[in-house]
């Protein structure tokens, strides 16, 4: 398995990178961590004529916080979230999530923005960005910069709102209030596998009640999605096992599952129920 031939470009700036994208359009792919793109190229499922390696762009690895948002640059690796320090619960949440991503060698190379742009339905980061209301900053040489909300960004399996000449140059995630609780759960066959189902739950505690409830489901449908009806059910209610079961049942009912080689529709609904229950349960731990 060897990739089809391509021209290699190693721009040293974002300007140069988007310039190359403008020039080569849909015949070019951006190479960040390469942990999804290179396997696809090795098996020739992907065969771009031009590869734009952004790894030599300076200052694209460290995140920073401004205006109440965590701003994640294009070369921040999964493993960098292990030591992410930001105010409030967002840091622990991201640390929790990143631990579930694949294995050490992949986490050392793979990038956050790469995962987002790859839009795998079972990607941890695609789910997290959806639930956390992230904004994706897309940049093209001709049209400059635009912001796309997560829910508009993921269009279908491995397909995003990015145009052929656009590059994902940053993802911004609003910091979380100190009152936020969260629960993340992933169901997988083996440690480090892509999840069969993932769920991230985020809410604030107001006295005994849950408010601003956000429940996101990944892996089951074509794109990660917030389950509005489940959020409504939980909003302004006191957490309880019984309520969580009710919410999980509702999630299972309203999910629109993909059918895979390993699971029919009923099974996918079962997984949804399980993953939502466990993410909700987890939100009460710690």
């Amino acid at each position: 398995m060897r990739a089809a031939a391509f021209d290699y470009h190693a721009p040293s700036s974002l300007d140069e990178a988007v310039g190359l994208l403008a020039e080569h359009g849909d015949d070019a792919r951006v190479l960040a961590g390469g942990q999804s793109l290179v396997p696809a190229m090795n098996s020739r499922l992907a065969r771009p004529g031009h590869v734009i390696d952004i790894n030599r762009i300076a200052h694209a690895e460290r995140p920073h916080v401004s205006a109440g948002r965590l701003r994640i640059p294009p070369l921040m690796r999964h493993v960098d979230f292990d030591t992410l320090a930001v105010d409030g619960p967002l840091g622990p949440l991201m640390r929790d999530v990143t631990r579930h991503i694949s294995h050490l060698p992949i986490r050392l190379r793979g990038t956050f923005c790469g995962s987002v742009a790859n839009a795998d339905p079972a990607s941890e980061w695609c789910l997290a960005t959806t639930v956390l209301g992230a904004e994706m900053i897309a940049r093209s040489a001709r049209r400059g910069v635009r912001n796309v909300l997560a829910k508009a960004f993921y269009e279908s399996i491995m397909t995003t709102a990015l145009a052929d000449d656009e590059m994902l140059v940053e993802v911004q995630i609003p910091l979380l209030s100190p009152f936020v609780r969260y629960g993340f759960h992933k169901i997988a066959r083996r440690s480090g596998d892509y999840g069969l189902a993932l769920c991230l739950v985020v809410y604030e505690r107001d006295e005994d009640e849950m408010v601003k409830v956000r429940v996101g489901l990944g892996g089951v449908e074509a794109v990660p999605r917030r389950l509005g009806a489940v959020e409504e059910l939980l909003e302004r209610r006191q957490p309880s096992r019984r309520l969580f079961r009710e919410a999980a049942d509702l999630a299972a009912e309203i999910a629109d599952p993909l059918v895979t080689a390993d699971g029919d529709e009923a099974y996918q609904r079962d997984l949804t129920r399980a993953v939502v229950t466990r993410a909700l349960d987890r939100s009460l731990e710690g």
Partner: protein
Amino acid sequence: MSRNIRITMEVNGEDRTIVVEARTTLADALREGCHLTGTKTGCEDGVCGACTVLVDGEPIRSCLMFAVQAHGRAVRTVESLSDGITLHPLQVAFHEHHAVGCGYCTPGLLMLTLGALERSPEIDEDEIQRVVAANSCRCTDAHAVVKAVRAAQTAMRAGRE
């Protein structure tokens, strides 16, 4: 900007300059360009980990990195572990704990666990197991590998003191 590229990387402490195609993976460049065949390929999908090497000290899949990306970087392969006389503590531990099966995955496991221990010398047994789980193998007892890495960890600690 071309399809054939001259690159220079430091391999096991020595600068190597080779010409590769842009599409040549680091794994192939090491094996074919540098004649260091200790690094194996088993899937070219990044899953099996037989090709794991250290790039700038980090254990990565050399089948998922194009050789051009290693230009100017420091690469360490299994061949660097021993001077031919003394074995590295990890190599000794793998031998003593029956952690070598057919030996095909061994170089990858060695470089994976070396990289993990160099990053985090004090990782616990659970964490070691998770690290080892990154590479697949059909004929080595994974628990023997974990035990070997634990033993090597102790030996490496003693060596530092």
